[in-house]
């Protein structure tokens, strides 16, 4: 039963996901507190990315993927309701992927694209401001302000990923989903993204899938451990990494066989 507590940006319950006959998520209930970072951890194939992709209906495009369950945005918007347009949902719930995927366009156009198609800016000046502000928030503006017309694919991997974060922010989402956002980055670029996550949580709710235990412990206040499609344990990150309740969680985070 999803309660109406608006302290949560997103509430989920009784979530089941099947790929054809194969069960990927088995009766998961998980709520995401506003303005906090929640990490989803677990071994490959545990269902954490599948679950993340349910949160902005990325799984809709996979024919054999069948999603069931309750997903409430801000306590009252059923994101799987037939009345909800996927594009509108993704304005609210943005996503950053594992591999930076800038469009083969200029730096400016990459960030301006979303606000343009969603009709967020009413004038060129406003669009310029949104682009500038988003790049600022993503910690990239100072590095690119003199080359906004350069093609974005010429940026370094870390810069490209921050550009993708700027692109996600530009459409003013409430929630940002991140699917292993640092797995293709070096430690310095990773540190910048982690710093950024820490700053972004003041304005956004962030849900991050990561394979790095140390990253989960550094960036998130809540951690959820998935295994074989089940949510094994959810709690304060500090507790999960010092004294998890479940032996399975302990085995996974300490690097033992589960």
């Amino acid at each position, binding site marked *: 039963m999803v309660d109406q507590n608006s302290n949560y940006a997103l509430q989920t319950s009784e979530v089941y996901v099947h790929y054809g006959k194969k069960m990927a998520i088995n009766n998961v209930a998980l709520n995401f507190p506003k303005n906090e970072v929640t990490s989803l951890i677990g071994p490959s194939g545990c269902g954490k990315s599948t679950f993340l992709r349910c949160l902005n209906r990325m799984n809709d495009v996979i024919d054999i993927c069948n999603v069931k369950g309750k997903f409430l945005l801000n306590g009252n918007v059923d994101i799987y309701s037939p009345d909800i347009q996927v594009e509108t949902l993704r304005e609210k719930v943005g996503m950053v992927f594992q591999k930076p995927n800038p469009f083969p366009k200029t730096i400016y156009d990459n960030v301006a694209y979303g606000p343009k198609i969603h009709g967020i800016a009413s004038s060129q000046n406003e669009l310029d401001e949104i682009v500038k502000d988003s790049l600022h928030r993503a910690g990239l503006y100072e590095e690119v302000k003199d080359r906004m017309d350069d093609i974005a694919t010429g940026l370094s991997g870390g810069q490209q990923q921050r550009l993708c974060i700027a692109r996600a922010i530009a459409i003013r989402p409430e929630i940002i989903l991140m699917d292993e956002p640092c797995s293709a980055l070096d430690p310095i670029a990773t540190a910048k993204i982690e710093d950024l996550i820490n700053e972004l949580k003041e304005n956004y709710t962030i849900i991050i899938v990561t394979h790095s*235990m*140390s990253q989960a*412990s550094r960036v998130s206040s809540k951690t959820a451990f998935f295994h074989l499609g089940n949510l094994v344990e959810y709690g304060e990150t500090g507790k*999960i*990494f*010092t*004294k*998890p309740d479940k032996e399975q*969680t*302990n*085995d996974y*985070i*300490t*690097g*033992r*066989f*589960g």
Partner: protein
Amino acid sequence: METAHTDKNFEQKLNHLTDNLIKMSNIVEKQIEIAVNVIKSKDSSDAQTTQNLDEQVDEVERDVRDLSFEIMTLHRPVASDLRLVFTALKVSKELERMGDHSRNLAKRAISISSSFDVDLTDQMHNLGKGVQKMVNQTLESFFKKDEVQARISWNQDAEIDRQYKSLLSDLIERMHNKETSVVDEGTKPILIAKSLERIGDHATNIAEEVIFNITGHYIDLKKSDFE
């Protein structure tokens, strides 16, 4: 049985850390046993043995410290592994202090005259035997990860304190009465009794660490009402 680590190198180091603690515990238990016997035997070569063993204890403590530092730096332990490293550092410190007290009390015991009161000597020896038993059970609870035993051991400290206070008041009373055999020894018997009582305190600290290692919480045992 604990599940095997995927990182064998890390697992080896954690096992080595536990082995070092077992080694250190064995040496310290031996030190205490010898020191308690010296209270009656006044054997100076045994007292010297406690001194020699103390050097070994210090060496293992350094090994525990260095290995813990290496594990934390290179392997970033979490959860049960983190608690083990944390506990190892604290338990090794407690053991090292127990070793120091054993060495000191043995040194003082051989300097006490053979004409010293037999009853008081027996009381000191009994206190020592009680402490020895408590230390043994506490360390056993650590290696067996036995929370119930750790709590029982912790509770034994009250009895150690009672015996210590009773011995102390006897000593003071005899001094008041100007019993020469007691007065001549000055503060030595008091300091021996104090060392034994302190060893008991270190054992209770270890019992608290054992409970932390198992549960992840430091419990305010003074307020708990277990028996």
